[in-house]
């Protein structure tokens, strides 16, 4: 089956990224990684939404609960 333009572009992008990573992907394992890459692109798009300044990577966990558990 001939891949559509979108799939062909995705595959070219995939090949370039794998080359940059220095990976020689065994041919019979490529389809599974390519499917995973397609899903990754869907997920990374979800991550890019407006955030507040408070949403920074440090201090991921709220310490409120920790303080509540501490004994006097």
């Amino acid at each position: 089956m001939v891949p559509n333009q979108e799939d062909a572009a995705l595959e070219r992008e995939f090949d370039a990224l794998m080359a940059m990573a220095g990976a020689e992907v065994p041919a019979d394992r490529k389809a599974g990684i390519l499917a995973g890459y397609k899903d990754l692109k869907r997920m990374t798009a979800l991550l890019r939404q407006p955030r507040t300044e408070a949403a920074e990577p440090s201090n991921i966990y709220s310490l409120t609960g920790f303080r509540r558990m501490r004994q006097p």
Partner: protein
Amino acid sequence: MSAPEAVHELSIAEAGRRLRAGTLSPSGLTEHCLSRIAALDPLLNAFVLVTRERALADADRAERELKGGVDRGPMHGIPYALKDIYATAGIRTTCHSKLLIDNVPSEDCAVEAKFKAAGAVLLGKLATHEFAIGGPSFDLPFPPARNPWNLEHFTGGSSSGSAAAVAAGLVRTAMGSDTGGSIRGPAFYCGTVGLKPTYGLVSRRGVFPLSYTLDHCGPLTWTVEDAALTLEVIAGFDPLDPASADIPLPHFTSGLGQDLAGLKLAYPRSFFATQEGMTEEVVASLDAAAQQIANLGAKVEEVELPDFELFNACGRVILIAEAYAIHEKNLLTRPLDYARYTYQRMMVGAMLSAADLTQAFRLRRELSLIINAHILGTYDAIITANGPTGAPRFDAFPADVPPKTTLQTMPFNVTGNPVLAIPTGFAKGGLPLGMQIVGRAFDEPTVLRIAAAYEAASGWINKRPALDRPIAVGGAALHAPARSHQ
């Protein structure tokens, strides 16, 4: 002549009472478990290594100590087993991988050191998905574990052997690890209890990492009480684990046996019920469980959570980034030494950008605040689904492309909260269904209290796989066990 007593059905607490009363010996209990493993594990593939000599030596020591008045606590003389990513000094630890097939660590992981100090009895090392990811894979040195409820079905993963061994009554408590649901998924599919403790409560030192900021260590057990007693042994600050929390430890059994009066529980029905592939029988099972918990005295209210896909994307991006970082060198130089699914899942990490990972960590902060400050600032716990359907058949997995994960477990690896997976009934085909009970950070006693009350009221735990009857196994997929014995 009467039939030999099924001592594997004794809870950890009851076995402990009998060990102290002298009506059961650690050696007798251990021999019984080893006999069950010999009889049943060739069908289940739960163990990759049975440490028979070590187990008998542990049991003998426990027997002498208990007789001599030395009592090391609730696990003294009680058998346990470890997922094969837990380092054990002098005992092969393979991560179920060709890459570590001859790996014999020189030091114990922190959890194994705690079990040893508690006088427990190591039965062996358990099957896992390779490096706790991928699976189910038939292109590894050991076959995948099989579901004791139906051997043609998947156990879930990655703590596959842990769930199969506990569900089959080979051992009452087995350690698993959970990076995106690897304790709770197998517990759900195999009908056991699975406890992912709060991030930082149980040391991960010496457990082969998959994702530094998402990995949790915890037990799979037959009952909630077994989980609480195991946690009494394995929890605690470890200065050599960078994520370990230095906090006072509660008594994890303190809430067991109480009703649920005074508790307020959040029930995010739309969060799970609208998930793609969600089955009516899972939703009905959750609705019935929520009603039963309300009948036990808790106030249960429906709430809204952010879209599951946000949690999932956040967790998956972090997981594959961290896993790729850990395995990068071997993935690039020894691709064919990994199983197909393992390699395919991990290699996706090579295509992430720094911005992707940073955005995931920013979202993680936001989602953690919503769960911890907003939802659990108002409610004592959350009850939600574990997955949309019971365990799939092995032959439903595609050959070339790793299957998509459908479990709803990742949100609480993202947030780090304690979660207990517990059975809520059975699907029409006889496979277990279940739910998750999510608590505040380091509030395992409340999670265990809710779970124990529900377990006692529902009675699901009393139904076990019929493995003691002759088993008819069809299909050619069953492999001869490739395990070795120490």
